[in-house]
């Protein structure tokens, strides 16, 4: 199956800092999605981004499909951004990466 790798595995930020999370995938895919799993386990879809760049508030994402990677940018981080960020790629079903665990400290 498709391999999806995320980096870094863990990230600790001071509130207000910016960060970039990376997702590499091993094969051509139809789409890529970013999810946030909060500390209580609830998964929320952030972006559907097969290519190009999208922005939603303090978050933005860029996918370069030809080079098989996607980036998630978090600006002016807040403690509520803490949790695990997953990217997932679609190839008949969703293949999830192992996630980046983000901790934002006040």
């Amino acid at each position, binding site marked *: 199956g498709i391999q*999806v790798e995320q980096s870094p595995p863990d990230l600790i930020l001071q509130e207000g800092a910016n960060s970039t999370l990376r997702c590499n995938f091993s094969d051509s895919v*139809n*789409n890529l*999605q970013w*999810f946030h799993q909060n500390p*209580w*386990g*609830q*998964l*929320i*879809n952030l972006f*559907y981004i*097969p290519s190009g760049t999208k922005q939603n508030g303090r978050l933005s994402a860029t996918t370069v499909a030809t080079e098989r990677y996607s980036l998630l940018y978090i600006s002016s981080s807040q403690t509520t951004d803490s949790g695990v960020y*997953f990217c*997932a790629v*679609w190839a*008949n*079903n*969703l*293949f*999830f*990466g*192992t*996630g980046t665990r983000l901790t934002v400290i006040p």
Partner: protein
Amino acid sequence: GAGVSQSPSNKVTEKGKDVELRCDPISGHTALYWYRQSLGQGLEFLIYFQGNSAPDKSGLPSDRFSAERTGGSVSTLTIQRTQQEDSAVYLCASTLSGGAGDTQYFGPGTRLTVL
């Protein structure tokens, strides 16, 4: 309903017993997915239902796992003769049409502990 619901939220069982986990998708969503998330890990695809089509069972780890979806709505995941390695959070998601670009809406999960 307003979102995807799952029950029970927690299930503790003894090794060898059978368990049933339930998922109620968002009303009108035709596609339903089951995933398993082991502690500290990503999500592992288990099974996918799309409308009246035969389900994609390619992710089921063994023949002890089965799932059905009745009336195109509620789904039940059954694990027979549970083993300790089955302990995980089981997540259900639904999408409007099941296409590659559809947003997946996840339920809160069922935490299964096999003693």
